[in-house]
């Protein structure tokens, strides 16, 4: 077969091959030392000694599994993220590891045990919780229960205190606040996870790569003509959307087929709000309204939110037991 044209050699046709880039291990070993609490002794864990008990979740990032260490019986959640030569992705993982290591003294953060590298993945070992807010509220509605206001108040209080801590102490913002990143346990604790896309907060107008789960993204991040630097108020918007979702049982926005439908609804139309007939208090409705101010300059930051009456009530509420409510929902089996 005649192939003269394509195979003719020209001077200078040879292409210099770049040096292959190895899969970055981010200086991680395939084992790590972990401490279950600040007081306990360190235990060495090897990736190959972890046994999968069940899958806890998955997404575009990878997978989270409940795993057990064979020798010690320790149970933990292990999030496996593909290590990547994509700079942005690598940076995100570095931020997550850094944020996790420094969050020991924050009770509203899921405890980070350690990190390893194995089979092309970064393994992030964390405290295992009993459920995510996402699964929890869906299950509640399935069994015919609604989410009461005291639960919403205490959940929001924990989340805001955790986010405020991360901002004040570690200068990090979350950027992906949503129900599946808010975890609950049977002791009644509410904790935040996945600061995987946190970035160091700056006051500059430096552009950031689009981050945050789209359905929870604030209007100033969507409208191309008014894009602005990311700050904590974007997470406040995401929290407001989260509250409405668990309060009424569905996400306030429809599934968008194109980014332009999102643009229209989130940027052009009025913000969602708690329905008047839903039975929530005026303080609760006002709190949500403030979280969902479309003009982010008008939207409150954490200290202002924490000072609002709704948060004060959540702090002082003694009649409602988070532990009892969470166990009640989790222990009720849904029957068709």
């Amino acid at each position, binding site marked *: 077969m005649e*192939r*003269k044209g394509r195979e003719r050699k020209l001077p200078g046709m040879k292409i210099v091959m770049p040096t292959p880039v190895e899969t970055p291990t981010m200086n991680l070993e395939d084992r790590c030392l972990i401490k279950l609490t600040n007081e306990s002794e360190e235990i060495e864990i090897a990736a190959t000694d972890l046994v999968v008990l069940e899958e806890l979740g998955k997404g575009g990032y990878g997978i989270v599994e409940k795993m057990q260490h064979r020798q010690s019986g320790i149970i933990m959640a292990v999030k496996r993220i593909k290590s990547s030569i*994509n700079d942005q992705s690598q940076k995100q993982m570095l931020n997550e590891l850094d944020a996790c290591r420094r969050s020991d003294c924050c009770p509203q953060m899921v405890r980070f045990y350690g990190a390893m590298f194995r*089979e092309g993945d970064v393994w992030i070992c964390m405290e295992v919780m009993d459920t995510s807010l996402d699964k929890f509220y869906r299950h509640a509605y399935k069994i015919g229960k609604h989410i009461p206001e005291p639960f919403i108040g205490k959940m929001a209080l924990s989340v805001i205190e955790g986010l405020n801590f991360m901002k004040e102490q570690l200068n990090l913002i979350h950027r992906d606040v949503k129900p599946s990143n808010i975890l609950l346990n049977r002791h009644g604790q509410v904790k935040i996870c996945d600061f995987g896309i946190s970035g160091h907060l700056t006051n500059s107008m430096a552009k950031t790569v*689009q981050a945050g789960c789209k359905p929870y993204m604030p209007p100033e991040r969507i409208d191309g003509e008014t894009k602005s630097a990311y700050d904590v108020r974007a997470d406040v918007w995401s929290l407001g959307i989260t509250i409405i979702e668990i309060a009424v049982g569905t996400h306030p926005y429809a599934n968008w087929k194109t980014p332009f439908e999102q643009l229209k609804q989130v940027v052009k139309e009025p913000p969602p709000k708690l329905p008047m007939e839903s039975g929530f208090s005026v303080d609760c409705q006002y709190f949500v309204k403030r979280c969902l101010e479309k003009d982010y300059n008008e939207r409150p930051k954490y200290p202002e939110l924490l000072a609002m009456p709704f948060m004060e009530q959540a702090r002082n509420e003694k009649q409602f037991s988070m532990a009892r409510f969470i166990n009640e929902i989790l222990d009720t089996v849904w029957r068709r």
Partner: protein
Amino acid sequence: MGMSATMGDSASIPGVFFADFGPAPPEITPEGYHEVELNKTKWVLPQWYNSLKPLGEGAYGVVCTAEYEPTGDRVAIKKFFRPFQSTIHAKRTYRELKLLRTLQHDNVLEMIDVFTPDPDASSLNNVYFVSVLMGSDLQNIMKIQRLTDEQIQLLIYQVLRGLKYIHSAGIIHRDLKPSNIAVNERCEVKVFLSFSQLSFLILSFFKILDFGLARAQDAEMTGYVATRWYRAPEIMLNWMHYTQTVDVWSVGCILAELVSGRPLFPGDDHIDQLTKIMSVVGTPKEEFWSKIQSEEARNYIKNRSPIIRQDFVTLFPMASPYALELLEMMLILDPDRRISVSSALRHDYLREYSVPNDEPVAMDTVINSIVTIDPAEERATTLSDWRELIWNEIRLFQNSARRLSFVSCTDTEEEPMKI
């Protein structure tokens, strides 16, 4: 074994208990295979692959190079990341294997071996894919050098030649970008059908709207910023109602980047992407507006200030007149007016390397294999269903004549000129 006092104290921690499980049982390496630990990854390979070296990462898998002992050729081996993480992942793995088993063209990256050390379908968890070793990909090549105009012509011609074949098989690539174009020292090109878009290949052909899959797909792709930079505007405007010319747009973006040395439309997100596109090619005319099916998208564009198409001569001062002409025809907003692959192959810019009689299309057997939906595939819903299907694909390829029939595409020394 007696528990230490420390461990006893720790036992009171909620949610944690201790037990001595003893050492992990040794994993058995199947006969004919050997085990290699490389870059904190375990590789279980047939005996004929040796001398492993780390190579880096492909989409959805880790990659190494190895020597194929019988001939001494080096090959690339990809170990799939968690191919059974979900039914979507499994479906992708299956479709990629099926396509790679079926497609055969010298400008499309071919599978030369596929294997698993797992003994049967029910325990299938590890899948390895072997291909010829190309030197690098275009993205990494562009990082260290500017290519000459002759090299660019030869590269673009081969990409279009590969696309002609892919399109003739009823497939739209949809994710063409520099990192999906493998190139060797001799300026030979193989288009890489990466994992991330395979789930759409057959769907695109049948124009089946599977929003569930589309949503998952898009959710993953938005995490990879660079993916959007080469994407045709109608993908964002008409969401899954597009044709083969989406790939021509991508080639245009790549050609522009090769000529200028920087990405043409590095958008931050979908809307920013479209804004950057319109700032160069101008806002669409009335005839294109009417083709946009999304009312929100139409309104968005109508409300923007009109922009006139930029002068490509000013935009690409280094480009030759023929390159500019081809770019103009490729980077047209309206896909119906954009140049086709067949016409682009005949453009004067590529004349030097054009061989019209050697631009093969897919045979009927290939097309039939791709468009025919296997009843078992249609019925597949569980991971074990997909394991069975993937197992069959592996066996089909291993029994075919194409297995391990290859020559190395990497130069270690200059070869005599071929006539």
